[in-house]
């Protein structure tokens, strides 16, 4: 039915050899797609002078050169992606984007904007150093010696284990997956999980011990499946299998979670959030907690906080303060954010301030650049809060609303707890005052849970209204309750204060002048900033990012800045703060055809504390032995990336035996990432380490096996959205070029080696439920990646409620769909199999979505009057009793329950780190060049042409003091890395040396380098594969990557400094020296 050329898109070994692209015995690839035919073939006819403009040569997808994931239009010539532009259907690219109803032929000639990284994606996809086949190490870990092995052998060895490295003299047994798949009965797992909850909830140590004994008795036949029967809360041995990743989007997340958690039953499934902006996510999670009935606990509690954050709707703002954020370079831009700002600048609609120690490209266009001292962002916010409170410039009408009904009366989509009364215990604010504290009645409520009626209590919160206490329900839609803003009184013998009162007290700990001195800025600038911020009603916003969160005080810095947005009541208003909304691909919404979680014949419940001890309290664990804990616990956060490898190293709380790393490079990306190398290269600490990577990277070089993966132009994913995008979207990433890796057979199906092929093959060999024949249930197989992903596309097509489905693709669109994929081999595109995956009923809707690169709401529907249509729409907290009642596991002290300034940096025991006293006189920060994305762009030759190497930015005054000039080579050293070295291999270190660029555009005393350069793997060095040398390209290793200079925590000694509350890995609190090198 398609006009497929049998040869198209197939890469044969013969062709590769002919092309001279093979070195090292067939491991690496420089060619993809059919070698080009003569150009005349594509452009012979005078009517087709420009084949790239034809819809038949275009496919829409989603970029991943950075995580913004803008829409892309990939133009294909003879099976090769020849050009990438932006997708006009996608609001990340055009403002406004074209109507979703537009036929693809009508936008074939419309190219939408795309940033330089996106434009250069072709060079990353067709990188000559990409892997095609599986590598197994042929020397010690990290030795860069490899041999190529068949895919099936790799799967067999990883699943079965054994003496896998006997041939290179390692006489040790390596555990396979089968050995760790200990607890296989979902019913037992569920019962154990419920019992462990009881153990955790028991506060009395003796009773806790008794419960453990009872557990052992109850599950006496299954104790061998546990890591440690004396500590059942560690969970089953299954947890000793870890899967972690750097960048994994929806689709692959659900696929991998199905394997790791729902089928295999391990809790250890962790992302990288804390290396990006953990404290930003987790402070906003704390702010978005809701007080609701929890089915599992059978009572009301603070729950459902969203791991998310807000960003400004800059398209309508009149004033924005960007703090530690550069939307022209990063900050979930630039393609989407820049046009929404530059239009405002040119028309005079918008002005903005930038708080950043470095003069970023954004700061260059700012009304005011405030180069505050790094780490004092929270102090600056409190200074602004103080000024606003002193001058009563807050939105009092908004802040007074204590519940939903009051907010609705004012037409406000959200409300906050500024007026709620907080009890003081020995002078310290802790829990909220409740009706029962005043002898007022508690409400009896009940709810249906799985067919049973559960009774529970609701003890109302209380505000003071005109001096009298008023109990209320925050979600009451009938009875509006407003409260007095500033309260400091005693009720029924209990000292209480309102949230706003407590905030004011934090802000008044210093005068404006004192705050200015802490921040190293002028008090006048703070005042002007505060005045401007409060001069535009709801069309002003504080938009913050990594510069605020990646400090030891990140959580509280973030909370303070976000609270400023609450003070002017700008949430869900045009020009104020927005949150992301997506079409959900999971199938859990009503009207969606495929609920992937439910479509599982034997889904299990993973349980037990994770290796990173996330979202769990140390005090509740059976490991609790007083303070400090051996390593920190993170009750308020998750995906604590920097804790994964060091915790493996310390085997705390238990040893990990097998780790899969997908698209991640902790050694390169983490602050003090060099500390991970010590662990990763030691098979005694981590017996089996498997990486899924596109090439031999800075971390995968330490793996036992590397499975080649598909690039973003060859695979499926659901990119989701970002908070600055006011339009509801779901960009779909789909295969647009023939796969580069070799084709293998799994479950009887041909497919390219990839993350999916690897997991499917492991599942096949293990006999893991949820995959293969009847993998979704009787008669529904999961043999191919598309069986899974196309169901997700169908869910997106269905929309989030009945009646929300997209139209069917017309015959013409179906024809185009097939025609535009004529270059794809059957291993990734078989129309009959695709159709079977979703059924006739959904097929044309799936085609409609894929023809447009995803689903995008109409532009007009994103707004209603002065408000955003896609709303957050509920309670937001400036005070959190949940946080106030949570303890730091290292000190035993509770965390503050509201925004506060905590000087940085501090170590794991909450003691100041003062390396400046040891002569480390410069403050190191990092930044993003617009042309780079951390570890994966520094080897892209087009982008390297813009910036062959990065620099160490030094202020002129510092340069003069140190006798440095432009172009001088300097080594970056710190108290925890006094030699300034990357310990890459035994006996081989890479010095952290970079070229100085002297600038006026940085705060004196601060030095900076941009992320992305300075590689020591990724094709920059020679590899030995099957005994032959594959030459590296030195261009790929130029410049400096100074993460290894970042401060190692003096207490823990094998991890960077971290924020104890929000778990951010700390990038910006290290003091360094610059040591001149001979040029």
């Amino acid at each position, binding site marked *: 039915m398609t006009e497929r050329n049998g040869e198209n898109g197939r890469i044969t070994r013969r062709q590769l050899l002919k092309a001279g692209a*093979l070195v090292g015995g067939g491991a*690496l*690839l*420089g*060619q*993809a797609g059919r*070698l080009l035919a003569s150009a*005349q073939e594509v*452009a012979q006819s*005078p009517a087709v*002078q*420009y084949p790239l*403009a034809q819809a038949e040569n275009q496919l829409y997808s989603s970029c991943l050169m950075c995580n913004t994931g803008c829409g892309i239009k990939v133009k294909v*010539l003879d099976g090769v*992606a020849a050009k*990438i*532009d932006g997708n006009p259907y996608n609001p990340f690219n055009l*403002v406004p*984007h*074209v109507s979703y109803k537009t036929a693809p*032929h*009508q936008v*074939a*000639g*419309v*190219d*939408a*904007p*795309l940033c*330089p990284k996106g*434009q250069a994606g*072709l*060079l990353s996809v*067709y990188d*000559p150093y990409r892997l095609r086949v599986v590598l197994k190490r042929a020397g010690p870990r990290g030795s860069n010696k490899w041999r190529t092995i068949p895919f099936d052998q790799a799967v067999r060895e990883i699943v079965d284990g054994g003496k896998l490295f006997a041939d290179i003299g390692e006489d040790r047994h390596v555990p396979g997956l089968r050995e760790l798949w200990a607890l296989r009965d979902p019913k037992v797992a569920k019962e154990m999980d419920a019992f462990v909850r009881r153990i955790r909830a028991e506060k009395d140590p003796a009773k806790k011990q008794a419960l453990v004994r009872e557990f052992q008795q109850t599950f006496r036949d299954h104790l061998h499946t546990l890591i440690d029967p004396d500590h059942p809360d560690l969970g089953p041995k299954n947890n000793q299998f870890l899967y972690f990743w750097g960048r994994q989007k929806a689709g692959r997340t659900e696929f991998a979670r199905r394997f790791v958690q729902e089928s295999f039953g391990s809790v250890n499934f962790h992302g990288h959030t804390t290396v990006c902006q953990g404290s930003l996510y987790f402070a906003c999670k704390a702010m978005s907690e809701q007080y609701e009935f929890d089915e599992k606990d059978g009572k009301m509690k603070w729950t459902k906080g969203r791991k998310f954050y807000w960003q400004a709707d800059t398209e309508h703002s009149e004033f924005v303060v960007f703090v530690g954020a550069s939307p*022209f370079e990063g900050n979930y831009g630039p*393609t989407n954010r*820049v*046009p929404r700002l*530059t*239009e405002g600048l*040119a028309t005079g609609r918008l002005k903005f301030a930038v708080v950043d120690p470095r*003069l970023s*490209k954004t700061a*260059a*266009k700012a009304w005011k650049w405030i180069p505050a001292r790094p780490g004092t962002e929270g102090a600056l916010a409190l200074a602004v809060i103080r000024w606003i409170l002193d001058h009563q410039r807050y939105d009092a009408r908004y802040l007074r609303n204590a519940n939903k009904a009051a907010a609705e009366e004012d037409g406000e989509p959200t409300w906050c707890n500024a007026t709620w009364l907080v009890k003081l215990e020995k002078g310290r604010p802790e829990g909220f005052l409740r009706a029962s504290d005043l002898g007022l009645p508690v409400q009896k409520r009940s709810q249906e849970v799985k067919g049973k009626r559960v009774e529970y209590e609701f003890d109302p919160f209380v505000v003071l209204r005109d001096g009298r206490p008023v109990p209320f329900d925050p979600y009451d839609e009938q009875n509006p309750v407003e409260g007095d803003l500033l309260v400091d009184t005693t009720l029924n013998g209990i000292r209480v204060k309102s949230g706003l009162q407590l905030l004011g007290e934090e802000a008044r700990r210093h005068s404006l002048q004192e705050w200015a001195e802490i921040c190293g800025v002028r008090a006048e600038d703070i005042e002007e900033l505060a005045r401007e911020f409060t001069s535009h009603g709801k069309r002003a916003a504080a938009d913050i990012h990594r510069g605020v969160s990646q400090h030891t005080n990140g959580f509280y810095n973030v909370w303070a800045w976000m609270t400023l947005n609450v003070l002017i009541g700008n949430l869900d208003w045009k020009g104020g703060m927005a949150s992301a909304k997506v079409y959900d691909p999971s199938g859990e919404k009503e009207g969606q055809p495929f609920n992937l979680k439910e479509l599982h014949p034997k889904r299990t419940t993973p349980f037990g504390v994770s290796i990173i001890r996330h979202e769990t309290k140390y005090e509740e664990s059976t490991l609790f032995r007083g303070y400090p804990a051996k390593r920190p616990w993170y009750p308020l956060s998750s995906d604590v990336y920097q804790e994964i490898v060091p915790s493996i190293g310390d085997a705390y709380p238990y040893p990990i035996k097998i780790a899969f790393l997908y698209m991640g490079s902790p050694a390169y990306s983490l602050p003090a990432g060099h500390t991970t190398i010590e662990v990763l290269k030691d098979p005694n600490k981590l017996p089996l380490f498997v990486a899924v990577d596109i090439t031999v990277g800075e971390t995968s070089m330490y793996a036992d096996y590397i499975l080649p993966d598909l690039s973003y132009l060859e695979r499926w994913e659901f990119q989701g959205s970002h908070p600055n995008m006011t339009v509801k979207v779901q960009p779909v990433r789909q295969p647009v070029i023939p796969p580069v890796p070799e084709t293998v057979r799994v479950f009887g199906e041909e497919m390219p080696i990839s993350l999916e092929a690897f997991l499917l093959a492991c599942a096949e060999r293990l006999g893991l439920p949820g995959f293969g024949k009847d993998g979704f249930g009787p008669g529904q197989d999961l043999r191919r990646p598309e069986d899974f992903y196309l169901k997700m596309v169908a869910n997106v097509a269905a929309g989030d409620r009945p009646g929300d489905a997209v139209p069917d693709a017309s015959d013409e669109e179906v024809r185009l769909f097939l025609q535009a994929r004529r270059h794809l081999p059957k291993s990734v595109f078989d129309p009959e199999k695709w159709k079977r995956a979703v059924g006739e009923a959904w097929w044309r809707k799936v085609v409609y979505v894929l023809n447009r690169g995803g689903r995008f709401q109409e532009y007009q529907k994103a707004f209603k009057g002065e408000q955003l249509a896609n709303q957050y729409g509920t309670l937001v907290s400036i005070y959190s009793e949940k946080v106030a009642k949570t303890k730091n596991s290292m000190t035993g002290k509770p965390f503050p329950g509201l925004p506060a300034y905590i000087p940085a940096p501090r170590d794991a025991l909450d003691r100041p780190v003062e390396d400046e006293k040891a002569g480390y006189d410069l403050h190191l920060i990092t930044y993003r060049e*617009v*042309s780079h994305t951390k570890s994966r762009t520094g080897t892209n030759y*087009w982008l*390297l*042409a*813009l910036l*062959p190497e990065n620099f160490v930015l030094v202020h002129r*005054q510092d340069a003069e003091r140190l006798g440095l000039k432009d172009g001088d080579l300097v080594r970056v050293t710190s108290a925890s890395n006094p030699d300034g070295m990357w310990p890459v291999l035994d006996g081989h270190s890479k010095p952290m040396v970079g070229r100085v660029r002297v600038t*006026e*555009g940085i*705060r004196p005393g601060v030095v900076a380098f941009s992320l992305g350069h300075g590689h020591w793997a990724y094709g920059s060095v020679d590899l030995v594969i099957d005994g032959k040398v*594959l030459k590296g*390209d030195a*261009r790929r290793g130029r410049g400096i990557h100074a993460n290894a200079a970042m401060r190692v925590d003096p207490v823990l000694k094998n991890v960077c400094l971290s924020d104890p509350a929000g778990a951010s890995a700390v990038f910006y609190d290290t003091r360094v020296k610059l040591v001149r090198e001979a040029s």
Partner: protein
Amino acid sequence: MEGGERALATQTRESRSGRRRFLKTLGAGAATLLALEVLESTARPAEAAPAAPPAALPAERPQEDVLLRMQRDLQRALRKPAHLRRWAMVIDLRKCVGCSACTIACVAENKLPPGVVYRPVVDEEIGTYPHVTRRFLPRPCMQCDNPPCVPVCPVNATYKRADGIVAINYDQCIGCRYCIVACPYNARTFDAGEHYTDGTPGRSPVEEVPNFEYGKPWKREGDASPVGNARKCHFCLHRLEAGMLPECVTSCIGRATYFGDAEDPEALVSELMHRPNAVRLKEELGTKPRVYYLL
């Protein structure tokens, strides 16, 4: 390879003296803003080729991205006889964020090798801490109405078209580089036949795909053109003829680059190039650029 890299890299960061030159130019700048001298059309192969029907556009809506408005302007111009169009570009420096999307998009569109760049963006730092800023200046070929590169060509390979574009006939160019020296804007570079993936395990297929400059496919193989030629920006003539805006315009995330027919009073560029804040580079040389900057 090294040389090629350097060429691209240095062009994206100019010296302070370069900045001073630019500022001086701006100071002198309010002179002639327009030079619409219509040159006599010379029949050339690329101009004579029959144009394909322009790309379809979605139905017009009251609110749409400025790129669509300009593409409609462009397609209106294409409906006129060719000699009545006069392409012009306006770059709003207030909206340029120095991202270099245009630089790379142009490299990708025209499959430019190391050392060849049509549209660098200059990033300059101005001032003293804390009163300091940066200015970004994209610098395409100015498509001068009085182009210094044309008369120096010994073989008439470079020529001025009726629509304002200064073009190169690759088949005729002998690679003498006189034009490269003559251009006061450093708009021309030489194709020395290098590839970005030289010296790696294999050449990237992207570097083997043809480009479509001047409306025909060009593959860089051996010594065949455009290898050995002078090369420069041509406002993406091949895209214009397909009814599409130049790649530097469509890729511009700041919407800083405007393009259209200066002879069409309804076109957005006609309006912008007459704004009081419009200037051209090095007016004093009398080159009469067709690229305007808004300050």
